[in-house]
């Protein structure tokens, strides 16, 4: 027989106490702070000062506070896109490529519809961007539903394919004839998203992002399609048994997800850049995965997570300007934050018990 000395063991529990959930972001922040402090000190800055500029100072001026919303706009959209797919158990890693598909549509139509009034042009490019993202997402979605090809691989690889398509366009037919830069010609004034607040970069894209978040919330929580999606995502066999068309539901979720990512591309072209350029997206499609995960696949969570990431993005620029530390510190913080938060999500399902 074994000796009976007491040992601490991790035991899985089904129901983490309710007070754990709100503690996670706070704890994640504290642990992230501790983990990144070493790096900050190494970059010869004070951790507290750095975190002040990261998280507090962007909120102190009007300009930088608006910039948080600008930075949050594409993240709200890609976060919503990824959430829509993940909720249905379809792991769309291809929001980045779908974003560019939407951007191509916006850049093309934005030039072609120069002479047409904005009331028509703006809805047209949004719809076209949605359709383009959907079309690009249709390839892996159909492969998944018809042939059971793993979507993680196909959506991810198609991002690279899209990268080459964009590059081919910008170095070929769409190269700017005036400057010779690898960027598409500027879109017409009628296609440009109007500013919400003068002398800022905040534009119509933010409103569209909010609307999409609202629609996401409504579909997931209020419609029977949302329930079907969640049933498929959480238990395919049970959903199938209950008579839900698993394939059809997955397909629709995947296509809508691609469409929303496409709108993110439209918002960047029509709201910020006015051209299609190679680095239109700072990995928004991938950050969307982080946002969706941290937001635990619900609309409110996605909204809060994208604002927080917008804050860290804006803060990273302030920090590097004020303290002269590399702007990459912001990315390191984001990445650390994600890992720590995921760790906490995992750990909340366990409790320590004396055996």
């Amino acid at each position, binding site marked *: 027989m074994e000796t009976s000395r007491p040992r601490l063991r991790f035991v899985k529990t089904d129901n983490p106490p309710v007070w754990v959930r709100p503690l996670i972001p706070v704890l994640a922040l504290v642990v992230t702070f501790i983990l990144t402090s070493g790096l900050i000190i190494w970059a010869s800055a004070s951790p507290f000062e750095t975190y002040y500029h990261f998280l507090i100072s962007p909120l102190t001026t009007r300009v930088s506070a608006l910039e948080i919303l600008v930075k949050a706009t594409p993240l709200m959209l890609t976060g919503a896109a990824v959430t829509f797919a993940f909720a249905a158990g379809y792991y769309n890693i291809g929001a980045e490529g779908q974003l560019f598909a939407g951007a191509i549509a916006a850049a093309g139509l934005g030039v072609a519809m120069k002479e047409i009034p904005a009331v028509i042009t703006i809805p047209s490019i949004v719809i076209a961007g949605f359709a383009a993202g959907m079309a690009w997402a249709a390839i892996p979605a159909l492969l998944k539903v018809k042939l059971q090809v793993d979507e993680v691989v196909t959506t991810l690889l198609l991002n690279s394919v899209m990268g080459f398509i964009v590059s081919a366009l910008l170095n070929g037919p769409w190269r700017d004839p005036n400057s010779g830069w690898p960027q598409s010609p500027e879109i017409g004034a009628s296609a440009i998203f109007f500013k919400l607040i003068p002398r800022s970069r905040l534009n119509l894209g933010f409103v569209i992002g909010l609307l999409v978040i609202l629609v996401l919330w409504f579909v997931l929580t209020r419609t*029977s399609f949302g329930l079907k999606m969640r049933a498929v995502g959480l*238990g395919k066999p049970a959903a199938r048994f209950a*008579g839900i068309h698993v394939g059809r539901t997955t397909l629709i979720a995947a296509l809508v997800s691609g469409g929303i990512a496409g709108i993110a591309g439209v918002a960047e072209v029509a709201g910020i850049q006015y051209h299609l350029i190679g680095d239109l997206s700072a990995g928004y499609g991938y950050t969307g995965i982080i946002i969706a995960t941290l937001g635990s696949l619900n609309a409110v969570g996605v909204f809060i997570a994208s604002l927080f990431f917008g804050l860290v993005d804006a803060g990273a620029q302030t920090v590097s300007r004020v303290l002269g530390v590399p702007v990459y510190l912001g990315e390191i913080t984001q990445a650390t934050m994600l890992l720590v938060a995921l760790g906490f999500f995992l750990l909340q399902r366990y409790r320590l018990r004396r055996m």
Partner: protein
Amino acid sequence: MYIVDMLGITKTFGELVANDNVDFQLRKGEIHALLGENGAGKTTLMRILYGLYRPDTGVIKVGEQPVEIHSPKDAIANGIGMVTQHFALVPPLSVAENVVLGNTDGFVVNRAAIEEKVGAAARRFGIEIDPKALVRHLAVGQRQRVEILKALYRNARVLILDEPTAVLVPQEVDALFETLNRLKADGLSVIFISHKLHEVTQITDRVTVLRDGKLIGTVDTSGISQSQLAAMMVGRETFGVTRKGEQHEQQPVTLRIQNLCAKNDQGMLALTNICIDVKAGEILGIAGVGGNGQKELAETLCGVRDCASGSIQLEGKELIGKTPAGFTQAGVGRIPEDRHEGMVGDLTVTENLALEHLNEYTRSGVLDHKATRRQAEELIHQFQIKARPNDPVRTLSGGNMQKVLLARVLSRNPKAVIVPQPTRGLDVGATDYVRQQLLEQRDRGAAVLLISEDLDEILALSDRIAVIYEGEIVGILPAAEATPERLGLLMSGAIKEH
């Protein structure tokens, strides 16, 4: 002299007594069957011998010496090897590599040398296998041979085979028996876990029968008939909720299944020409030992498994080709076999209850939360479910989960009800409740098809009993004629009446 002595073995899992003071003695050079129904405690006893479980009480002796077996490693050191139903082989590796895996001498593996050694061992034990072949290219029977060779290579003198024929085709069974007889002639002892009577009488020297965790007896195979063994294996009295009153004669057939054939997940034919009529107001029980096609039958009748051929008619209307939702709409009450897979654990009780009939709660795409909530409250009350509407289903006990499933289906008054293993894993109270509900469905006039591995349940509830064996219905008899002996013979494939 006994090579293995297990004396007074008791093993409990929570409240379940899996082995109750069981004695088991194995002679040198014999093939010894361990016979019993599902859940009789055969596998538990052998897992104890192989060090996978520790007994609560009891003594194990190997070669008359008391031993402590804490792990399979200890078992192997004591010359005991076990081949389970699920092989522990690495498909991309060769036979020789699989055999020596975990039993190599140094750091470097000399491929030629181990192939030579494994080849020599295979010849010595008369096991036909190419040591260079990759395991993923081998048929199931050959893989089993690799597992046996693996045990023998580690100098096993006692070989435990857990239902070794369950995965084999008849020719492979013959080859296995040849191998076993040769090993016996070499002085090895084999423990053969089975519930197939003809195999037991064909290959073994002695039989130990377990029932409900208790030892019923150990007998010489030569001195006993298959009927006697069948009676030892299943004979018992029924208890709890039982059917009362005879069914009315001349009821119309509600569910007609004709020449139904279907394949299992491996693409092998799992159901062959199933023909069953279930009348209105009767419970037809399908008895059989697990793994004889019950799962495939239930899934096909629930519309979630494609059938290869045949027909399923509900009141004359063909169901084949319909979607699962189509089955429900036609009036089939479908209850999933695995209640954990049949419900979405992370969704709430309310959502799971609404899932099968979402259209009724939807107005232009929007889900009527009030209506689903109201329905959930009603059903929770009506079916005495101990849960709140917003509890995630995964937090419910097994009995309450089953009640949620019953509520979802039975509240619709289906014309036919398909219930596979409805009380598996439930406690006595929940079991009685579920059985009572099924009887109420019968009295209401529904055609109830009860598929169960629990013979008590079949005997207590069924008006007629069909026995399934290797994917075929081998007999259909009225409850009054169903003696345990006759059922036992049918269930173990000894006779065929259909």
